[in-house]
């Protein structure tokens, strides 16, 4: 592993994203627009339903967007011969993966800062914990999305297949993360399943920040999500082979 190579990969990925205006817009503007849409949906309803759903979505957007962007980008790299060339060079597999994680983590930080600012500042989302911690949770969620995206790209041969992992990998987590039915109210089997899905902890952390704001339990959830991200990166490294058939 070498910081020089990791930074080179991260810098290159960021240059590529900067050049691709549509992806950049999707990464930065879309979450803000979706949060606004959500706020608008609940506008005429009594109560503060936005406060109920908003935090979960603040966790889900960075995760989903990064999952999608990363799996497609790395798949493109696997297919185009650039990965083969890089692996024939003095580049550690971890350099490659961490470079991607760093670049997308940075983008996620900007994305979350924007989405959190819009949600709290403009749309009046009530946060009891510190707002910056909301940002930390969002970045960790994005890194998780990046790590899982890197991992699944190993199991897809085409970008088309990679996109299909979305419904298979992301939507079940969405359904079980506590957004629709509180996790402890789920049937016991489903509740057990939701206990091993990383997005559940991401959403728990967000909801805790808006609700009771017990910082220790937020950090514990953040730790679990980070653990999943690290495991995803490690497995991803194992699927990167210098020698291929």
């Amino acid at each position: 592993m070498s910081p020089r190579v990791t930074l080179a990969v991260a810098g290159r990925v960021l240059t590529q994203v900067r050049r691709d205006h549509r992806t950049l817009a999707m990464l930065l503007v879309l979450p803000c627009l979706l949060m606004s849409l959500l706020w608008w949906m609940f506008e005429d309803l009594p109560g503060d339903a936005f406060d109920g759903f908003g935090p979960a979505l603040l966790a889900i957007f960075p995760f989903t967007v990064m999952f999608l962007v990363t799996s497609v980008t790395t798949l493109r790299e696997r297919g185009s011969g650039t990965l083969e060339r890089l692996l024939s060079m003095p580049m550690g597999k971890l350099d490659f993966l961490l470079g991607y994680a760093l670049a997308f983590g940075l983008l996620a930080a900007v994305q979350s800062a924007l989405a959190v600012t819009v949600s709290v500042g403009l749309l009046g989302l009530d946060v009891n914990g510190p707002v910056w911690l909301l940002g930390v949770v969002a970045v960790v969620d994005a890194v998780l999305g990046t790590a899982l995206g890197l991992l699944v790209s190993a199991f897809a041969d085409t970008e088309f297949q990679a996109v299909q992992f979305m419904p298979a990998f992301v939507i079940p987590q969405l359904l079980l993360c506590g957004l629709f039915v509180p996790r402890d109210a789920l049937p016991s089997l489903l509740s057990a399943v939701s206990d091993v899905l990383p997005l559940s902890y991401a959403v728990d952390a967000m909801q805790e920040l808006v609700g009771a704001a017990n910082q220790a339990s937020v950090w514990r959830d953040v730790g679990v999500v980070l653990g999943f991200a690290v495991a995803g990166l490690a497995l991803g490294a194992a699927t990167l082979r210098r020698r291929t058939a």
Partner: protein
Amino acid sequence: MMNNVIDIRDLVVVRGGREVLPGLTLEVAAGVTGLLGPSGCGKSTMLRSVVGVQRVRSGTVEVLGLPAGDRRLRDRVGYVTQDVSVYDDLSVAENLRFFARVLGVKGDEVDEAIAAVDLTDRRDQVVGSLSGGQRSRASLAVALLGDPDVLVLDEPTVGLDPVLRRDLWRLFHRLADRGKAVLVSSHVMDEADRCDRLLLMREGRIIADGTPAEIRGSAPDIEAAFLRIVEAAA
């Protein structure tokens, strides 16, 4: 004094359930060595084995006295894959700067490599908007970074016009004159005469090995010689 730069012994490679290289033994020294053969005969497979990115079933491949793909070889072997392996959405210079950073090579080598493949006037153009030949030259430029001792080039002259092809072969010979081993594959037989040494490959075996003149023999050109050898073996 080491004269064999690449040393392949009994190399067996199976791809897609087929024995693509059924037991190849071969030595390559400094100079420009051409690997010629029909499409699908196993050229890319052999070059990938030399670079150490091909899974092999048995046999050994050594480069500069080290096992192919060894960590210590990774900045001493320049490799051009058959597909253009540069980033379409980066400019020529951005691509080169990225790979230079990965290799730990100084920035001024970037401009030299771009000049060597005659892309200086395109250096800030995005690779995706270049012509096919220009893109493959950008890919070749990456392999020149860091002044590697061994260059493994998989069909680097495909789609280039005659003038550019001549210029690139001159470049390969300039590198060889400085003691480098340049291993170039092609399925265009008329490139044969530009090599110091020629290897003709068919179905994973080397069927002829020598200078272009030796291989041509009394045949009018390499293509005719290739057909003669194939027919004699049949």
